[in-house]
């Protein structure tokens, strides 16, 4: 394996094998951004097995950030730690902390329910609730006890427009959410996730269960949401990361290897390992 000129010599994999601490190659551009989510020295264990190692990453406000890396590298685990959905598994233990707009996420004083209301999450498979389309979208407001019909209707329209679904379902808001297509269901889940105006939107491989046309629509949607929403997205698909995101983070074996502007990561990465991964030499 020859090193391209200008690349830092690839020694991450050796260091990982030796159990040494990895210092992420973070590009300087991140420092010019407003930071919404700040992950500091984050470690996570599933029982005795460590899944995340010393993760430090700052997610910029109003940008789309992709987490890429081979299966099992911990990208979904990291994403699911942000809204503490991993807490539902009793065997998870963490060290370090994350901050959402300077509020700590892991702290005994944090009300997890209130914390989760500040975030939205979209999952791999569309998972609408067995209710009407309308009730799905306004569910985040319902759990806050909102009963004003005008407010609910307004939020429903705004969210569905935001998720580019309004035109397709406006005449059947009272139909079951299970009756629409998979791609529409996923956009419905996005509408539901943005209904409460989250500070960060987490997406866990949002297109992996969709066909190419539906994927295209979701990608267009993500593109349109740029600027308004802070999006942190896990993707298995490197082209998707390259197409949709402003920043890309490459993870490997539970470590964050390199993090920087998407263009640089894909075309002129600083690390040999990143270069090998994005050119398809492994993973």
């Amino acid at each position, binding site marked *: 394996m020859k090193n391209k000129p200008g690349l830092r010599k690839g020694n991450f994999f050796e260091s990982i094998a030796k159990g040494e601490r990895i210092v992420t190659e973070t590009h300087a551009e991140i420092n010019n951004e407003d930071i919404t989510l700040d992950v500091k020295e984050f470690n996570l264990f599933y029982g005795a097995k460590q899944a995340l190692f010393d993760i430090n990453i700052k997610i910029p406000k109003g940008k789309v950030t992709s987490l890429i890396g081979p299966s099992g590298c911990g990208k979904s685990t990291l994403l699911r730690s942000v809204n503490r959905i991993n807490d*539902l598994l009793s065997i998870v233990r963490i060290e370090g902390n994350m901050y959402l707009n300077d509020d700590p996420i892991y702290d005994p004083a944090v009300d997890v329910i209130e914390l989760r209301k500040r975030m939205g*999450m979209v999952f791999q498979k569309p998972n609408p609730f067995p209710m009407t389309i309308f009730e799905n979208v306004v569910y985040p407001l319902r759990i806050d006890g909102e009963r004003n019909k005008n407010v609910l209707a307004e939020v429903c329209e705004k969210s569905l427009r935001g998720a580019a679904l309004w035109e397709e379902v406006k005449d059947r808001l009272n139909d079951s959410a299970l009756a629409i297509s998979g791609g529409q269901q996923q956009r419905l889940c996005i509408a539901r996730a943005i209904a409460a105006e989250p500070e960060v939107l987490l997406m866990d491989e949002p297109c992996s269960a969709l066909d190419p046309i539906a994927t295209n629509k979701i990608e267009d949607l993500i593109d349109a949401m740029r600027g308004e929403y802070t999006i942190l997205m896990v993707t298995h698909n490197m082209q998707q990361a390259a197409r949709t995101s402003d920043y890309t983070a490459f993870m490997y074996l539970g470590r964050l290897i390199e993090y920087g502007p998407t263009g640089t990561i894909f075309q002129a990465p600083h690390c040999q390992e990143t270069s090998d991964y994005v050119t398809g030499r492994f993973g």
Partner: protein
Amino acid sequence: MKAKSLYQRRLVNFIMLSITAGCALFSFLVLVMLIIALCKNGYPALTKTFFTALPAPPGVDEGGVSNALQGSIKMILFSALIGVPTGILAGLYIGELARNTRKADFVLNACGILSGTPTIVTGLFVYTLIVIPSGHFSGFAGITALTLIIIPVTARITAEILVQSSTAMREAAFALGASQWNVTFFVLLRAVRSGLASAILLTIARISGETAPLLFTALNNNYEADSLSQPTASITVTIFQYALSPFAERNDIAWGAALLLTLFILAVTLIARYTGKPQYLSRPLR
């Protein structure tokens, strides 16, 4: 090893197919014969008197089973009213609130053992628990026995349906900041309600046919019980006693009661099939 010839393979295939098809046909024929026998012997007994009259003395023609009908309906209804909610709440604990904990596993196993316990043992248990201390058989004892059968079955079914169906949706709801309470009652139970309703109907159909737990508890009564603290007649125990009776007209009533019971269970089962179309399950129930 020498390869089998095509002829041999076809022969073996034909033989095995014939044997399995024969066995399938036999089990179907049993059902058909059962229904024919029930209809032939039972249908003539289903007169107006059968539904409205009390049992007549042996040898008298004008008897009915109105008391047993009432007793059965009361006991099934009350035991379902107590047992189903208790079982669902226990199932929620096992399948959702305490899921994947040792406590939940323990309770789930206990429910498994309980629902596998022969119902005659349950009857005997209630006999020593209620009938002996109170000094007499009663409808309450019968209801207790049936309730004890319903609870573990319902709890186990609820827990299993929840565990099967819920991961994606519960995560989605939790991620939106819903409370455990809200997730459980407004998302999960809603998602599994049709499957659950069908399972509960099947459980009720099952206890409708129970005789053993009522023998030692509610016993029987030739008259209409004034209250549930008296011995209470039931269709199943009536069938048992009348079928063994030496009097032909009582045997006829037993046939009629058996037909009625079978039709009831058949109807409930069919309703359960129709209501039980799972709306949102990661894999189908059946």
